[in-house]
């Protein structure tokens, strides 16, 4: 795998993780205010 391909893969993984963490962060904040579980129910 070339260096460019490796870096694209790293960026893609970071993007997906950040997107998921963003959704989880908002869910956590809402759960702190209203109550609720971090996982289960809606997807993320």
């Amino acid at each position, binding site marked *: 795998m070339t260096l460019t391909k490796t*870096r694209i893969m*790293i*960026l893609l993984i*970071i*993007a*997906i*993780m*950040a*997107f*998921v*963490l*963003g*959704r*989880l*962060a*908002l*869910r956590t904040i*809402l*759960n702190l*205010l*209203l*109550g*609720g*579980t971090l*996982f*289960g*129910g*809606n997807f*993320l």
Partner: protein
Amino acid sequence: MSLKKGDRKMFIFICIMTFVVCFLLGIGSKVVLKPSWAKNDEVKMTPEVGTLYTDLSYGEKESNRFDMYLPHDQTKKHYGLVVYLHAGGFTYGDKSGDKDILSWLRFKGYVAVGINYTLFNEDNPDANVYTQSLEIKDAIPHIIEQAKQYGYSIDQMAIAGGSAGHTLAMIYAYRDAKTSPVPIQLLFGAVGPSSFYKEDWNIYGFDQNTDEARQGAAGLFSVMSGTQITSEMIQDQTYLEKVKPISALMWINEETVPSIVAYGKYDKVQPFKGSQRLLKAYQDHHVDYQYFVAEHSGHGLQNDNKIYYQYMQTVEAYLDKYIPVEESVNK
């Protein structure tokens, strides 16, 4: 060598920026993106759908206003009225916040109404759940008369709401049903407290057998009911009679209207335990009820879209069953 170092720094910078942007996109997606079924219920305000009259008066107080959503078809002999009361912890909120659900109800053929009531705040320190419930009670005859003036004769109604609005809707449906100008056929709502048994209010620690817990319960229940409740009353259980006027559950009997309710299992605002007492009251009195539990959610039912979808589907089915829209005279 120095070029490679700079290249690596740039890549790390791009990684950080990608993380920040995608993190924000993740937050945004959770706020903006709705399930496909929710989009189906969105009804845009167009003349073909009907007419909206805002801030019609039902009393002398500044907040005694209601919005009336009238269906386009004016040819029916009678119309069902659906009142939806807004949320906001009895201290904030406005009827305009329920535009989507009121538009949907109007689209289905009902006269839909959102009512404002005097909120408990610095400007209105004497407002409480009891005075708010009396305002709702006063509003209903005015609403029916106003609809008649617009050419819509109301012969039956449903009442609903979210959170505080759900509480007020239950009080009207269960406590005031006999004084209603038209028969109440249905109640629906989510996450509204229906009773004030201190042992249920564990989320605020009122279930503890301490002076502090009793004082806390006495303070909150006094503010909500508008009557003086002391720690001693909490201790000897006499407070229950004091909170009866705002405890919808205590008015449930064999004649109670069909009811659809939804609650979040991890609610931090109002106690889920109280909703289980409500469930038992429905069962004991053989009420036609539907009780939904959002197993992963709190006060917003925010983590259980599927349950909320089932709740709304049931609301629609019960509306069709108990308050069917008449066929148009022209058909």
